[in-house]
């Protein structure tokens, strides 16, 4: 199949929870290789949209196309194999496992061997394990997690735990990485590091990134393209500078304070 210019195309996504409208027809596209920022007030539907893209929610209307193929009807665990990796707003690590095992778990969709092959130690199981461990090495180095690989995830500082989550998504070699507030809870210098890291990831893994973020300085520095949501609709879609100047965005989201002036 020919590569489309847009890795992800959303069209008219609508989502309701009872009487609460979370998304009221959202359409935009993420171009191949770009970092796209998704901003908007709390409760504007950013996470709901993430959940629609990664198959956690089924939108009541609209379509999600990845690489030109509709993915809306597929079960959510298929998303990783199709090339959508994600992180969560609040940490969602496997708390009983080590860092290494957490990341290796992300390699699950790369393998094929099942219960039988593993219980009988068939070659397929060994092959899967070998492949997963090879990918693990690359990711550990890239995300600077080698030193903590054996630790239980519960013992990690927040920022490191966030990197583990990114590593877990990355090991499956996604085409599109969905990051839900990666900078949340990080201080200024840590945000800088994250920025560098994300650019490196995009370079080495040749992937596209869609990120939800409130940290405007990060969004401004990192993103090629920004979409702003409010009350479940797109209120702006353009370059960071365009969106930041958009009066609707300022009214609904940014406000105007010295802090923001600094961030800009």
């Amino acid at each position: 199949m020919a590569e489309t210019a847009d890795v992800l195309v959303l069209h008219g996504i609508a989502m309701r929870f009872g009487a609460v409208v979370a998304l009221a027809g959202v359409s935009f596209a993420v171009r191949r290789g770009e970092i796209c920022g998704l901003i908007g007030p709390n409760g504007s539907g950013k996470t709901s949209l993430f959940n629609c893209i990664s198959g956690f929610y089924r939108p009541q209307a609209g379509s999600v196309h990845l690489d030109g193929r509709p993915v809306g009807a597929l079960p959510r665990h298929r998303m990783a194999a199709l090339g959508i990796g994600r992180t969560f707003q609040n940490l969602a690590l496997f708390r009983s496992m080590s860092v290494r095992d957490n990341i290796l778990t992300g390699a699950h969709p790369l393998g094929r061997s099942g219960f039988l092959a593993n219980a009988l130690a068939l070659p397929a199981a060994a092959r899967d394990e070998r492949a997963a461990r090879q990918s693990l090495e690359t990711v550990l180095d890239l995300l600077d997690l080698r030193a903590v690989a054996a630790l239980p995830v519960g013992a990690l500082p927040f920022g490191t735990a966030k990197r583990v989550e990114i590593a877990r998504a990355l090991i499956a070699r996604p085409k599109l990485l969905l990051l839900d507030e990666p900078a949340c809870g990080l201080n200024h210098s840590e945000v800088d590091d994250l920025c560098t890291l994300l650019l490196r990831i995009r370079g080495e893994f040749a992937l596209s990134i869609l990120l939800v973020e409130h940290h405007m300085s990060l969004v401004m520095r990192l993103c090629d393209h920004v979409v702003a949501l409010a009350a479940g609709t797109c209120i702006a879609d353009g370059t960071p500078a365009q969106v930041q100047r958009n009066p609707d965005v300022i009214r609904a989201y940014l406000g105007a304070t010295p802090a923001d002036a600094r961030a800009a």
Partner: protein
Amino acid sequence: MSRLAAVGVAVLLIAPAFVLSGYHLFQTTMLAVYALAILGLDLVTGTTGQVSLGHGAFYAIGAYVTAILMASFNWPYWATLPVAGAVCAALGFAIGLPALRLRGPYLALVTLALAAAVPQILRAKALETWTGGAQGIVLSGPEVPALLPLSADQFLYLFVLAIAALLFLAAHLLLRGRIRRAMAAIRDHPLAAEAAGIDVAAIKTRAFAISALFTGIAGSLGALVVQFVAPDSFEVMLSIALFVGLVVGGTGSLPGAVAGAGFVLFVPNLSELVSKSAPGVVYGVLLVAALFVMPSGAAGALRRLVASRRRARPDTA
């Protein structure tokens, strides 16, 4: 494990057949059977976190499959094991399907209800031709192959040991790679597991199936050892005993399953020595005390011990 240690373990396991006799060997054989049953329960409760209080049902069905095939269809004893395993795996899979939707206490109680219903079903008139109804089925034990210079008890022990060892090995292999990670991921954070590409439904139902397979084969072996099956052997208390074994032994540990089996097999007899008039009280107290001292079971206590030893060593500090 080094080769020497492996040989040591093998010798240790085989030794009872030649050191112990009669009743003691019988009890050791039952220990292997219960350990296998508890391991089966651990495969679903310990790894994917789905609490089953009804594994006695699979044990019962495994036992009955063997008994019926031997009594009504004259099958050789060894040929019944795979059938028992397959039947239980299928049933486990079927029960795993509704179990997908149920959380915590709901699943625990539905499985408990299953355990309560099984003796009733075994007694049902419609199945009496095969199950023998309330009377159950008396079996004759496996015959010792002519070439082996072994007593019936010795042969039975070695046979059970061989099957149990194979299944323990399979469990060990299963619990070290991607399937173990997938199951633990489901237990820790099902949503993140799905995002990581794990088919939660498939893993959960298969875990249930394989768990039922293990416990079912244990039941099948149990039938060969006890040489009798009846609904009275598989009342709810059996399921409770397996659960108690798992909790006392500790989840996620192969030796833990053996320790748990030891508890449910030997502690009731121990209780009787303490109080003839109310062994139930003593057993209950010992159970509570065991959990009081080792809240995460024997395996958990051992893990903690090892961890503290390791911490105490200066070079790793």
